């Protein structure tokens, strides 16, 4: 049972993030929601690569006696997570700068009031 807890956390984070994006009216909270989804996905990638008692996957500095490659945690998910974090920072910065400009133009962060684009 205990090994399922990280996966439950992942699903919970994604659902909380989606809820925030769909139902919250404040733009900053929408941005936070997207950030939470992103953290959930990153956590998912990290726990995929985890091995009980594994060492860091650095080929040149393996502790003596480690079985290769079974004794190491998986390096690929870590590389994926790093890429995803970098992309996430870029998206976050772009979204926050948009929110800043929107606040300057409209004087509010409420999505209900920011509706100049008609249906």
């Amino acid at each position, binding site marked *: 049972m205990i090994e399922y807890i990280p996966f439950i956390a992942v699903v919970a984070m*994604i659902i909380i993030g*989606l809820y925030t*994006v769909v139902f919250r009216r404040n*733009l900053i909270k*929408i941005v936070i929601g*997207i950030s939470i*989804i*992103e953290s959930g*996905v990153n956590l*998912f*990638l990290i726990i*995929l690569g985890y091995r009980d008692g594994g060492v860091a996957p650095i080929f040149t500095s393996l502790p003596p006696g480690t079985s290769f*490659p079974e004794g190491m945690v998986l*390096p*690929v*998910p870590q*590389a*994926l997570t790093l*890429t*995803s974090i970098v*992309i996430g920072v*870029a*998206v976050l910065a*772009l*979204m926050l700068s*948009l*929110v800043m*400009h*929107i606040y300057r*133009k*409209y004087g509010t962060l409420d999505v209900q009031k*920011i*509706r*100049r*684009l008609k*249906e």
Partner: protein
Amino acid sequence: MTFLETLLQQSPVLIIATPLLSAFLMPLVSRIHAKVRDVFALVVLGVTSCFVGLLASDVLSHGPRIYIFGAQNLSFPLVRILFEVDSMGVFMAIITVMLASIAVVYSWSFLHQQDGLDKYYTLLLLVVTSALGMELTGDIFNFFVFLEISCIASCALIAFWVDEGEALEAAFKYIVVSSIGALFVLFAIGIFYAQYNALNIATLAHLLQFTFLDKIVLAILLVSLGMKAGLAPMHMWMPDSYGRAPPSIILIIMSATLASVYGILRVMFTLYGNVLTTSLRFSLPAHVIIGWILIALAIVSILIGVIMALVQTDLLRLIGYAGVAEIGYMFLAIGTSIVALGTSYATVALHGGLFHILNDALDIGLLFLVAGAIYYVTKKRSLDDISGLARSMKFTTVFFIIGALAVAGMPPLNGFTSKFLIYESVYQVNPILSIIALLGSILLLAIFIKVLYAAFLGPELPELKDVKEAPRSMLLAMGFLAVFAVVIGLFPNLVLDTLVKPAATALLDHAQYISMVVGGL
């Protein structure tokens, strides 16, 4: 090995590297002179087009090519990325570079007195890079990275007119929709990696078991890529951002959107190609269920697109909704070919759908450029404020008529061929679908006739008396698209036989795509 062979061997990476590196050179180049910057952007795209052409001629005659980043032979588990280029990827890459070159020529006049153009061209080249990357890569994580690049760069381009609140609003909507879509693609990739310990599309397709998790992944991928492609019911970002972005870059954002359509095709036909015929519940095969879902969404897109376009007064938004309807036609054809997998009309439907990707780019692109030209000379968006423009803008009027007739699928133009293929094959599945599709086309024609009367004919307004024809580079860009539309309409077999049919064959023959990687290397 001759120089040309070396160039050919390296061309998949050069196609990505040329626009990517030039994008970051752009701020430096634009320090020299504005003219140099404008020419540099076109030269970069010209060089990229040469590489695409070289690669296309080889792939179309000798079959798929593989480019390996990293270890050449796998003795023990090493990390490497593959590019796998087949006729489908090449077909999309040709559309992308063509749209981008035309957009750059159009931008020369359209934006010539604005500042921040060095950043504009940088972002433009980044979107082109990302679209090309999505189309050429053979690695699903790499696909996600390019998808995110296209989200970020397109969003910044949509907000290019940062003084307008509406542009910011549209850009925010776009980034929320597309970044959530991209994150779910990453989640799906994680599930794949957990099950099969692979990220390569061909290897994954080979290993795929169609477990319960795989079905969830398929749903996630279809929803998130469909969101990015503008399929109903997640189409609402499309008219917003197409209506508020500078019209010169809509062509570029459209190429990124079409790359997402390509992503869906790749997922359906290659990644899940092996398992599409396994039966799910009630002894219904998976491809029938998935195909009908796509057809239903496509019909909704067509109806929403034309009905919302009917009531619009803002010209750019109106064309944006027509674009939603056109996306619907593509998915109608794709859905039909999935439902009828294995029959002869499935192939016809796929030909129609792929051909329609090219025709949508040409026709909707032409209409956007015309609307941009009207905005450039009058500074007005609403159809209520413009009238009688045909007197002063003769060429633009002709281009508009060509674009409108092509979108509605009238005979001598390119839209007719692809829509005819779609009607013909959809009729075999269910006649009602093809009636709805025809009705949509007729309504599109009615809508654009209305626009023709409102904007170009009718009485001349006093405040529009001294309006002049659009500048030369804009006319040139529109002319290119119009000439393509007419030529492809008159000689459809030129494109159908050389590009579309090989692309459809490459999609349907997923075994070849898989065996290129799994068998030999």
